[in-house]
């Protein structure tokens, strides 16, 4: 490469950087009266970028649909995205930018509970509602003092609910006495569920015979599985996301473990079947918001629309993102205003809202009350096992 060329590239880069700086420092964006700006503080890069992407896809689909129908209050709804690099401090940074620079009226996101917790205080301080589609930790909506955080909402189950559902399912439906827990040590979602499951399972008279951990993005699970096999559990609880779940189930079966395996809504993705293979997944169960067998038109139309838009079947995060967007749209409509305080009040009163995953009502703690279903994977097909009401 010639020197000249090199310095040319460097010059271009330097100019580009200055330009970026100039744009970035350009101060608060102007508010356009024909649109409603919603912030999206998401994991676009970094460790859980795939979850962030799914959730954003779901949200954007919902916004697109509503805009195609003329928007709300006569305005288009626009999602302004900011990346939090899958990291709490960046989540705080991103939400600050969204609120103070972009002047959004509500913020959707982030995915991980820890990132939501870092962002939520800033939302509260600025009196901007924050609606997370996916953060399951109880503390997200309720403070340490036990008070409900005014401006913070969520669209997903909380850890205690799903953990209890699966603990009960293991004890009562599978009638097992011993369980092993295989947890993603880097994920608060996973750890939160594991903790609740353990408590409830023991309360139901069960016994935890093994606790093993992996780290997100691991690909080899055989060592821990071999160890688990030796303790001979009746069931293995794997509160994790589909990519790792697929690999774990596959490798467990390869090691000759025919134990039933159970999990939570993170399992919901066709990838699980693709990775593990249909046969390996027999005798596995997980809790979810809805069952695809459920021929509810809301479910099928969502799945179809999503497939059409992105060329893939939605996973649980996409569905929850879509639901969160629907909740917000509904709240703005009911508030008949795009003022943050009014949106907040309307969100709190969300009731019997039809979303893709069912009928949703927010309780006093800003957590959705909706029934869960337990799904069995049979030859790669999701089949309805039982329904559990909260």
């Amino acid at each position, binding site marked *: 490469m010639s020197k000249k060329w090199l310095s040319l590239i460097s010059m271009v880069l330097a100019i580009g950087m200055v330009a970026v700086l100039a744009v970035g420092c350009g101060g608060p964006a102007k508010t356009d009266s024909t649109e409603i700006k919603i912030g999206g503080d998401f994991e676009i*890069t970094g460790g859980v970028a795939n979850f962030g*992407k799914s959730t954003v896809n779901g949200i954007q689909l919902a916004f697109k649909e509503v805009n195609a129908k003329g928007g709300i209050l006569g305005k288009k709804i626009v999602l302004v995205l900011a990346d939090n690099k899958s990291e709490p401090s960046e989540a705080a940074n991103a939400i600050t930018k969204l609120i103070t620079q972009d002047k959004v009226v509500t913020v959707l996101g982030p995915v991980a509970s820890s990132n939501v917790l870092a962002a939520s205080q800033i939302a509260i301080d600025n009196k901007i509602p924050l609606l997370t589609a996916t953060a399951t930790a109880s503390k997200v909506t309720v403070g340490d003092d036990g008070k409900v955080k005014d401006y913070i909402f969520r669209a997903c189950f909380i850890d205690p609910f799903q953990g209890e559902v699966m603990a009960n399912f293991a004890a009562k439906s599978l009638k097992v006495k011993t369980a092993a827990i295989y947890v993603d040590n880097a994920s608060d979602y996973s750890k939160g569920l594991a903790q609740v499951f353990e408590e409830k399972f023991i309360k139901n008279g069960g016994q935890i015979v093994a606790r*093993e951990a992996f780290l997100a993005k691991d690909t*080899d699970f055989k060592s821990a599985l071999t*160890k688990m096999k030796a303790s001979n559990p009746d069931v293995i609880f794997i509160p994790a996301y589909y*990519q790792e779940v697929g690999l774990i189930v596959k490798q467990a079966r*390869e*090691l000759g473990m025919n134990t039933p395996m159970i999990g939570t809504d993170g399992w919901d993705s066709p990838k699980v079947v*693709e990775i593990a293979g249909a046969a390996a997944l027999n005798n596995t169960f997980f809790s979810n918001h809805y069952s695809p067998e459920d021929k509810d038109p809301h479910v099928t139309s969502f799945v179809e629309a999503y497939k059409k838009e992105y060329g893939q079947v939605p996973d649980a995060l996409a569905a929850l993102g879509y639901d969160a967007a629907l909740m917000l749209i509904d709240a703005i409509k009911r508030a008949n205003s795009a003022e943050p305080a009014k949106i907040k009040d309307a969100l709190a009163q969300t009731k019997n809202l039809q979303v893709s995953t069912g009928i949703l009502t927010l309780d006093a703690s800003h957590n959705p009350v909706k029934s869960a279903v337990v799904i069995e994977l049979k030859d790669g097909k999701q089949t309805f096992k039982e329904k559990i009401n909260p």
Partner: protein
Amino acid sequence: MDSSSFLMQFAQQLINGVSLGSIYALIALGYTMVYGTIKLINFAHGDVYMVGAYIGFFATTVLGLGFLPALLLAMVGAGILGMFIERAAYRPLRNAPKIAVLITAIGVSLFLEYGSMLLVTPQPRTFPAVLSSTPIHIGGLIINSQQVLILGVSLFLMVVLTYVVNYTKLGKAMRAVSFDTDTARLMGIDVDKVISYTFAVGSALAAAAGVLVGVYYNSIDPLMGIMPGLKAFVAAVLGGIGVIPGAMLGGVLMGVIEALVSGFISSTFRDAAAFGILIIILLFKPAGLLGKNIREKV
């Protein structure tokens, strides 16, 4: 647990460890080769491995190729990519401080990760089953045919590489460049070309690893190269970086350590143990297990 079942478990963990370790070794081979020649920690190596896996993925799914053609295509593609990276990002810095090149390597690594994320989305893809996978049972122990294949391939490549480095003209040139770049140039060796080929070979190896791992775990994503890349580097250092059999030894050792720690101590401390053992070994053998400790002449 009685002693026989303990032994069984121990043996199974060894199998798990060796199979995991052969994957580290496969990636470490390319790492160590590049380092051996130009003393650069090529942090983008793990990402070239990822790109290789994606080339293999698209070759099998879109082009409908079989395993071997896809593997070759991935190796060629990654080889070209490797040469390009070296040409564009590393060669202009040949005489710059090493640490500057390291930062560039980190830049390249980020570029590959997030560039691919833009191109292929961050969602994982599933590799089609282009190779059969049959569990083999040996008296209660279980091993997968693909694991045997991966181990075989890495051993094979290790032997081939050792041969190339020690007995071929290119290998001799590589060692000459590694020993003293300026003298090598004076001896009529086209240093740029040698380094370029080194990157091509190293990257092709990474791609081979990527495709094999893609088939074995059948799930790939744009960030899949980060941890294996780091661990492979650790493995290479453990074995003695720059030494080809060292990469193999280091890789297998890392795998076995991880398996034994998860199997008998605690899986939560698996990675910490791997790094810890690396540090302890370095303190006693500062150049790694098979590395020669070259003392500065005073």
